[in-house]
């Protein structure tokens, strides 16, 4: 996106006021202990409990396909547009491309996000692109790119996973040929606690080393072929923890599939009844 020079950003020295609140004086360990007490998380979930998902297609009228996902408080809009020529490309390529743009809305996080894509958003876009490229039949549109945009309206953790799941639904509802349905899930690990579908605080706290083992794991799986289309992990984890988390996350991803299926069937039925 071109840089908007006319937009005046807040002075660089501005900081979110939350840094000065009482919560910030607590040590990280205390904060984490507050986040999970007696095996129950702040929002009353068990560690292995996924938040409820709401999925809807066709919410962006101008897009070829679109989907809106709500996962707890995390809200993401994804839209897919018709294939278009790949800009700045002159040679012939057999497989089409997927262009992903993942963006946090400026007001979606506690800290204000800038108008331009920052490095985290770029990284998320790259992860999304790789996850989706494995499921889309790219040989069906050689020389073209399909644009996928994801906008996070509210980030309450697991935004990337929600975006990948929703993008899969948007692609399918746009009639883009796909090998499979894709679902994604996040796991936040800190010491012996593994929290599925973490909210914003849990995700943040798991990225900081409070215990020796910590980290965030994102898994994207295709439903029929049971293939890992993308796996991303950060932090510091042992091999055993990771292999275990692959299995458990895989199961979680499977649990999301019926939601996606139901949503897609609904969208097919609504189109049939219209015509």
């Amino acid at each position, binding site marked *: 996106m071109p840089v908007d020079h006319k937009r005046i950003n807040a002075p660089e020295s501005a*900081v979110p006021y939350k*840094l000065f609140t009482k919560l910030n004086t607590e040590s990280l360990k205390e904060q984490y202990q507050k986040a999970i007490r007696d095996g129950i998380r702040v929002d009353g979930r068990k560690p292995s409990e996924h938040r409820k998902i709401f999925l809807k297609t066709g919410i962006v009228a101008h897009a070829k396909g679109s989907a809106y996902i709500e996962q707890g408080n995390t809200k993401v809009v994804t839209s897919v547009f018709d294939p278009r020529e790949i800009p700045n490309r002159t040679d012939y390529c057999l497989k089409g491309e997927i262009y992903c743009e993942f963006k946090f809305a400026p007001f979606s996080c506690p800290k204000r996000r800038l108008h331009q894509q920052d*490095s985290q958003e*770029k*990284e998320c876009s*790259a992860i999304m692109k*790789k996850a989706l*490229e*494995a*499921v889309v039949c790219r040989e069906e549109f050689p020389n073209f790119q399909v644009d996928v945009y994801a906008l996070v309206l509210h980030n309450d953790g697991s935004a990337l996973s929600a975006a990948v799941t929703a993008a899969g639904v948007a692609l399918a509802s746009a009639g883009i040929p796909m090998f499979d349905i894709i679902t994604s899930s996040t796991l936040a690990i800190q010491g012996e606690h593994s929290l599925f579908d973490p909210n914003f605080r849990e995700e943040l706290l798991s*990225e*900081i*080393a409070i215990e*020796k*083992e*910590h*980290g965030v794991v994102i898994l994207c799986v*295709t439903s029929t*072929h*049971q*293939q*890992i*289309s*993308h*796996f*991303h*992990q*950060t*932090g*510091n*984890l*042992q*091999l055993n923890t*990771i*292999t275990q988390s*692959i*299995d458990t996350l*895989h199961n979680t991803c499977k649990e999301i599939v019926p939601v996606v299926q139901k949503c897609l069937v609904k969208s097919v039925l609504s189109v049939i009844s219209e015509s």
Partner: protein
Amino acid sequence: MLILSSEKTDNPARIERTYYLISENIRIDGREREDYRPMEIETDVVSHAFGSSRLRLANTDVLVAVKIEVDAPYPERPLEGKLEFFVDCSANATPEFEGRGGEELAVELSNCLSSAYRSEEVFNLKKLCIMKGRKCWKLYVDILLLEVGGNLFDAVSIAVKAALWNTQIPKIKSINVDGSNIDIQVCDDIFSCTKLDVTGAPLMVTVCKIGDKCIVDPNAAEEQCSVGAVVVAVSRGNICTISQTGTGSFHPDTFKSCLILGISVAQRLEDSLTETLGEIKANQDVGFLK
């Protein structure tokens, strides 16, 4: 991955032979599946940098230099210094990098590096703090790809580790605080510097899936045979980042076996790197492009 996939390959027969040989645990250049190609490493090659290294892995050539500057820490993390990676894909390396051609690869590499170094267990940024909330050291790690011959992730991670190992941070003699002014006095003696602790610095291993077997350090022909690769960043036997390159998907079991292979190879790589770095003496007479 990005570049090599567009590279023209030699004939299909050669690829088929590669395929066949890999299932027999012998590769086209005589290596076994878990073997690396020979590497050459030099440190202290850039005189203006605080630490530098150059790595040559077969045809891949990487030059890494570390620059240090004084900066203010992030308000959210007042106790930590800063570490940033910049990858420059020079058009010298391959013509595809011309213009903005290498940008995607550069972003992928620097993202992977920064997420691998993010954990405190891996690299302790608190050591880079000069004064809480006010001043800290900022390390700029500039990675220059001089030649691309496959397996960039591994080469870059080794070179970065060696460069950080080589980095010397000036010692601070005194800090004068006068209201909002902070005056830092750096030790005059250029030889009294502190070295960074890089024992936890991660090494990345790219595990390539060919057929149903996994290999490390693929050459160009092998990268063509492969549908996808897993990059495993390993620090002190723990995995600090996993990412995928290419567009292929993996079966969970294959994926796990890739991780196991990656971790064991990384450990061996780590040992030999520490050994090699240990052999380098200070002020050894080596130069760039010797």
